[in-house]
């Protein structure tokens, strides 16, 4: 029998806070992380509605001045990984462990080159400067000795990172693995999505802008941050007295093979990812207590996902609660799947369903069991989290309350 994989540590930096407790309190409190920020230096009169991370936390044991010398993307990933290790009780005394790291980082070098350019550099023009990728920097700084890779499937990047890490543990390649996803908002990423007409153009109130499944939605709101987890085999975790946030029970992945940007109107490929994940976890749709939807707040995407869930869950779709926490966090792109996995752990730990805020008038073409406005208590044992990315990547993660 394949060993069960536990999630024994969390490190996060999100628009809803950076510790598990703070994130949980804000998530279940229905708080929006979206605010007006001055992002584009060319036009100081304009403010953009984004869900930002105001300050990336310094990991325990690091001097603030040393930590802040790293570039912001490096700070974000270092903070999440180091704090996840600390949370799992693996900050020290792990020399005998082979620890891997898999991070979802969708446009690492575009971000690095851009941030360098904005700071007056010209790194994109000097290839000799690109010596160390972010995952290998983390490996060096944290003294990790297992495999280290970056993966990317746009908004599904973190899903693939978790899936790969789980598989390494099952194969016995590593004793523990850090896995998750992170992303930053930059002027060019914002401009690219804005010019793609993917972003909400509401200008009334920032907290009302992100409204997945709502009839008045008009695009997504960009978010930034990320979350990284420590994954371990259950037996090994028990031996060292570690506790689990949840079991990472199932993973499924497929591709639409349809379009580089637009989700497929055919629900079969993405619903197959959901069914693969449920099968992998050994559960059926009737066992699912909550679905954290990908739903970003675009009409085409939200409706496509509703059809996916209707097909994947069958009759159970009339019972299974569904919410989109992007209504509060914004869409974290490469960090989205990981932060939504974190929301699932909150649901399991607190036995409560996170809401979709701003869901005043549900789109009738998204006929699902929504959790509008407010969290509600529930018995939560099995949860599924969807992430669908540009390029037609579909992932589904299934988490189960650890026995």
């Amino acid at each position, binding site marked *: 029998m394949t060993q069960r994989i536990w999630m024994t540590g969390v490190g996060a930096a999100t628009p809803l806070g950076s510790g598990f407790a703070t994130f949980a309190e804000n998530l279940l409190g229905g708080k929006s992380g979206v605010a007006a920020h001055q992002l584009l230096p060319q036009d100081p009169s304009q403010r953009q509605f984004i869900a930002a991370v105001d300050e990336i936390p310094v990991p325990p044991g690091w001097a603030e001045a040393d930590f802040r010398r790293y570039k912001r993307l490096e700070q974000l990933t270092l903070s999440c990984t180091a704090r996840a290790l600390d949370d799992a009780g693996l900050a020290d005394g792990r020399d005998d462990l082979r620890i891997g790291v898999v991070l979802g980082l969708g446009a690492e070098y575009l971000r690095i080159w851009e941030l360098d350019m904005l700071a007056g550099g010209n790194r994109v023009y000097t290839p000799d400067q690109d010596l160390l*990728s972010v995952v290998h920097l983390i490996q060096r700084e944290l003294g990790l000795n297992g495999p280290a890779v970056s993966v990317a499937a746009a908004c599904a990047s973190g899903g693939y990172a978790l899936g790969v890490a789980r598989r390494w543990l099952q194969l016995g390649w590593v004793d523990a693995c850090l896995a998750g996803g992170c992303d930053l908002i930059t002027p060019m990423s914002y401009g690219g999505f804005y010019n793609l007409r993917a972003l909400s153009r509401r200008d009334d109130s920032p907290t009302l802008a992100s409204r997945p499944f709502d009839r008045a939605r008009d695009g997504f709101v960009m978010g930034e941050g990320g979350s990284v987890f420590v994954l371990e085999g259950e037996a090994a975790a028990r031996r060292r007295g570690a506790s689990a946030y949840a079991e990472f029970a199932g993973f499924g992945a497929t*591709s639409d093979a349809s379009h580089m940007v637009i989700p497929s109107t055919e629900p079969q490929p993405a619903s197959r990812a959901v069914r693969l994940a449920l099968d992998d976890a050994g559960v059926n749709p009737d066992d699912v207590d909550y679905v954290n939807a990908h739903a970003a707040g675009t009409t085409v995407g939200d409706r496509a996902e509703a059809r996916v869930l209707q097909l994947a869950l069958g009759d159970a779709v009339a019972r299974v609660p569904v919410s989109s926490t992007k209504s509060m966090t914004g869409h974290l792109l490469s960090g989205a799947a990981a932060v939504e996995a974190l929301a699932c752990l909150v649901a399991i730990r607190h036995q409560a369903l996170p809401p979709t805020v701003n869901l005043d008038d549900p789109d009738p073409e998204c006929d699902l069991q929504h959790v509008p406005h407010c969290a509600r208590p529930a018995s939560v044992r099995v949860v599924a989290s969807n992430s669908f990315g540009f390029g037609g990547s579909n992932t589904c993660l299934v988490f189960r309350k650890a026995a």
Partner: protein
Amino acid sequence: MSVRSFAATCECAVAAHGVIAAPLNVLPALREQPGDSVRRPIPPRFLRHSDEQTVVGLAAVLKAMHAGPLRETCFDNWGVVAAPRFPGRLGGAATFRKYGQGGPAAISPHIIPQNSLHSVSSAISISLAMHGPNFGIGGGPEALAEGLTVAMTLLDSSDLPGLWLVLTQWSPEPVPDGLGSTQTETVCLAVALGMLRHAKQNSAGQDPEGVTLRLTVPPRLDRSGRQVRLVSAAADPAGQTGAAEEPPERSGVPPLVELARWLAGKPGERSAPWSLGLPWGGRVELARTNDFQQTKAA
């Protein structure tokens, strides 16, 4: 915590391969016509906004599909993973320049979907109607090692019928001209490997070129029971703690170029395996299946 005292290996069959090495002047033609598809027709101008590594990556897969015994294979649920090295450098530099001149309004909406780490695998998945997993790996200096590691992971799990691993890079890495191209004399290189689990290959009766890819995960203990601490080359540049096995000396030729040369050789000429030491201490070898079997028997 359990202590592993043996090396783990996983193997797969490379049932087909394709190699493309495109100088700058060849790229426009490849962009227009990357090759004939044995699947659905590739839409005209599908690659119009694609990164150059996407163009050669797709062309390499198409070449492999035509060349080998996979020609009759149903690829519907195959996966595709791509490990480009520094994708988006030329397009990114052009975008940064436009941004400097025209602000956010000048940013192309194609830069993120077409120049990110996922873009190569996604374009191949879409153009060839493959519904298995697709994602990008690496993107940086260790892209080749990362791509090989993850591809073996995927193929060893689930019921994936097969997997395309697409490895791409510029050689040498170009200095952008800020206009979307470069003055560097360079070649855009792609290697596509059509990978099957050995069991699947055997059951299908396919033994095209008899090539096996093997990944070895090193032991954590040495023979005397002393713990071997595995530290990546990046993590331990001075080599003080020592990796389990040092990669072979290289002549300064990029490993992907060496791999392309190995694959381009005739089967009878591949006397020695192609080998790559992984930064974390593992090793990947590509060799004739018979060579591996003889090693096992010995």
